[in-house]
């Protein structure tokens, strides 16, 4: 199937999202769609799938003009998509979600045996470990993303649009996805792939289209002809830059957060680590290793059943998240910005200022708009947050810009210990560097960071030391040399071999290199 988009324009109040975009996807190709946060990628995909109607321009399927009024029309025409936002029903099972609109029936009743068999088939392509009978709300963010992908695959459509499918999954699952995509491509399917990860894009796509501020900056260039540098400069108008953290010696700093023999209600065992003042301590692991859950335990959201946690040397028993924040000055940036990070219906201003209301309130408890603005606006500028104004509802921002809001509020909060869970999911490369530099900057000001990230380069750029977690236990601790190759190999060897094998000797193992 060939899909052509001609001269598409689309505006929202105060924003021109797309301005004369033309785009073509051919059968048997993987076409990467790239661009900064807010460049218009998701808007384009939503127009192709009938979620939005363009203000101008048209859509051709195999040369015939198509006019989609709803996603249903697009699906009927053989177009399926994984959208950037989650579209799963939390209280339905994985199987039901995957086959939602076409549950197989027998005698008029849903045939659950077949639901789970069918769902299994598509889920297995990416991750066989997810049970189709689990309710979706019990899954991690990464697992939900995999379910979304399986759902799109299950439509077996001629055109497959993937909007940041790999944003919150790790290398392993991403590799499985790429294998599937290559196979689909060989079958003659047309695939559009949105990602901020350049390595992935160059590895898997045949052509690349770059959007910049709603316009086409590179139109379907063969990937072979595009160097990394050319893609980047098409996207951001200048060269890429990696954050320079520099060598830091933190060995004789005081410990601010310590865990000794900690076990939790979720099954962590014997967790022990020390976070020093001004340090960035990385916590690496595969999806499902229990990293987010450990963060939750540290902020009082999950019960600690054994062991001791010390903050600034004193043993603490934190009973609630507000207590962690207010009394111990520990903050947590959730990986799940929609459910836990943001109040989508409220403006950018309140979403950022929520963490400082108490601090900036006058004696009478009054919070002035001016005081809020003085805190919010510099952060908006620093993070290059694209929004018509700070009064814009956060739900109307592009995905990456929403992520920036959920980070901004914690930069404002003035906490002493910050647990950051996947900070740059869906963030473009330019802002990623800015966020890395901001994280480094706050640590220079004495904030200590526990960094959870599945992004290996990010981990190796930022962390001073890296803890490796597997199956709810820590299996290794490595001083970060900031040299990518040997570091990633050592980390992966811990993950694949567990504590015993990798503890002292050098890296090996067949899969040690990916990530």
């Amino acid at each position, binding site marked *: 199937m060939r899909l052509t988009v001609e001269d598409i324009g689309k505006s929202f*109040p105060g924003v021109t999202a797309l301005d004369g975009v033309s785009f073509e996807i051919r059968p048997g190709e993987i076409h990467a769609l790239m661009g900064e946060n807010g460049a218009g990628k998701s808007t384009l995909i939503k127009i192709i799938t009938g979620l939005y109607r363009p203000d101008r321009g048209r859509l051709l399927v195999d040369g015939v003009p198509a006019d989609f009024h709803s996603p249903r029309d697009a699906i009927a025409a053989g177009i399926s998509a994984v959208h950037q936002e989650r579209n799963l029903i939390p209280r339905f099972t994985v199987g039901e979600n995957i086959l939602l609109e076409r549950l197989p029936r027998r005698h008029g009743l849903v045939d659950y045996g077949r639901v789970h068999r069918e769902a299994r088939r598509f889920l297995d392509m990416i991750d066989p470990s997810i049970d189709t009978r689990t309710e979706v709300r019990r899954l991690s963010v990464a697992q939900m993303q995999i379910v979304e992908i399986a759902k799109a695959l299950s439509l077996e459509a001629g055109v497959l649009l993937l909007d940041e499918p790999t944003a919150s999954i790790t290398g392993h699952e991403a590799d499985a996805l790429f294998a599937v995509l290559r196979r689909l491509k060989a079958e003659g399917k047309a695939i559009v792939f949105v990602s901020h990860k350049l390595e992935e894009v160059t590895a898997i796509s045949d052509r690349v289209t770059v959007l910049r501020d709603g316009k086409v900056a590179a139109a379907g260039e063969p990937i072979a002809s595009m160097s990394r540098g050319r893609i980047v400069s098409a996207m951001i108008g200048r060269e890429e830059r990696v954050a320079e953290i520099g060598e830091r010696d933190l060995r004789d700093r005081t410990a601010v957060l310590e865990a000794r023999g900690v076990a939790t209600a979720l099954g962590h065992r014997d967790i022990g680590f020390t976070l020093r003042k001004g340090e960035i301590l990385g916590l690496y692991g595969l999806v499902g290793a229990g990293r987010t859950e450990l963060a939750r335990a540290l902020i009082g959201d999950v019960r600690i059943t054994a062991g001791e946690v010390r903050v600034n040397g004193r043993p603490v028993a934190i009973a609630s998240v507000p207590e962690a924040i207010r009394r111990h000055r520990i903050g947590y940036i*959730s990986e799940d910005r929609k459910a*836990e990070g943001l109040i989508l219906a409220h403006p950018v201003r309140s979403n950022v200022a929520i963490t400082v*209301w108490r601090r900036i309130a006058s004696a009478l*408890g009054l*919070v002035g708009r001016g005081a809020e603005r003085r805190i919010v606006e510099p952060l908006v500028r620093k993070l290059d947050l694209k929004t018509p104004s700070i009064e814009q509802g956060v739900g109307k921002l592009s995905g990456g810009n929403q992520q920036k809001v959920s980070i901004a509020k914690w930069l404002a909060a003035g906490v002493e210990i910050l647990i950051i869970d996947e900070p740059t999911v869906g963030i473009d490369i330019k802002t990623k560097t800015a966020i890395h530099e901001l994280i480094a900057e706050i640590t220079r000001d004495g904030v200590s960071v526990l960094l959870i990230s599945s992004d290996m380069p990010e981990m190796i750029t930022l962390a001073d030391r890296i803890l490796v977690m597997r199956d709810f236990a820590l299996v290794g601790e490595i001083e970060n040399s900031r040299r990518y190759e040997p570091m990633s190999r050592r980390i992966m060897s811990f993950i694949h071999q567990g504590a015993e094998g990798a503890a002292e000797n050098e890296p090996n193992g067949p899969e040690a290199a990916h990530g």
Partner: protein
Amino acid sequence: MTATETLNPDPVMTVADANEAPARRGAFLAESGNLIGLAAIVLIFWVVLTSLRPGFISNFNLFTLSRSLAIDIVIGFSTMVVLATGGMNLAIGSIGVCAVMAAGFLMQGLGLPPLVAFAAALALGAALGWLNGFAIVRSGVNSFIITLASASLYLGAMLILSKAVTFNELPAAVADFGKLRFGGFVSPLLIIALAIGAALIVLFRFTALGREILAAGANPRAAELSGVPVGRVVIIAHTLSGALAGAAGLMLVARLGAAMPSIGQDWLLPSFLAPVLGGTLLSGGAVSVIGTMLGALLVTTIRSGLLVMQVGNFWLQLFLGVILLAAVMLDRYRGKVAERRSLGRR
């Protein structure tokens, strides 16, 4: 940060003070559009009623109107503050009547001065609201169920304790206060209601507590993870709701000059009508204080209109029910249109 100051390619999309106006004006217009619509409906009612029955704007009727408006406004506020948290309070009538009977007993039974009795009654209202909030937060059960139960519980306890006897020998000062008029027709009760409204505007717009109530209502999990003590905030909102219900009851005592056990039983519908007509979201996270006042004005107008038109009281319930449905449907329709427009479907 060099990464961010190098480029500023699209002046429209990057924040600057100068660009702040459009979106803000947009939101403001949407909200005030709703309010203006409501005000227009009220105005039409007034014009029609006045032309049919000139007595509608007589000093006497206006005075009566201003007293019941005051009460409707405060009843509406009582529900509005819990709607803000995404919950509801079906017990406001019961809390109101408990405060009423407590005040009656303290004045008539114990001979306490009205001010003391009223303060104690308000405290009782707040305490009953607190109890609701506490039960909701502690049990984790939906506020609908908890307040449905407590509505019955409070009412029952009041009836048992008071034996449902009306206190009608209250100090004369109470009824006198209810009869006071400023400028020919403005009851001091209305001034109190407006003052409460002003305080609520300050609360929800300009205080940390009010903002936290709204945040907790819109997304409790995100609020909690941002350091908002959601449980405490919900309890405070319910306490406030209880105090407001008590206040509405006491205003009725001043109007009637007596404390009656039948007070509060017809509050539920108007208590939802006023905020919902005024644009407060049932799902929590957004309130409109002025909208609630206008909504209450519409309720009062309809009630008084039916009265001057000498249409039987039976019609009132039917009429209010129709208005509520119409308002909710209009709101749905408006929401759909707005959504369609933003999705580009016309």
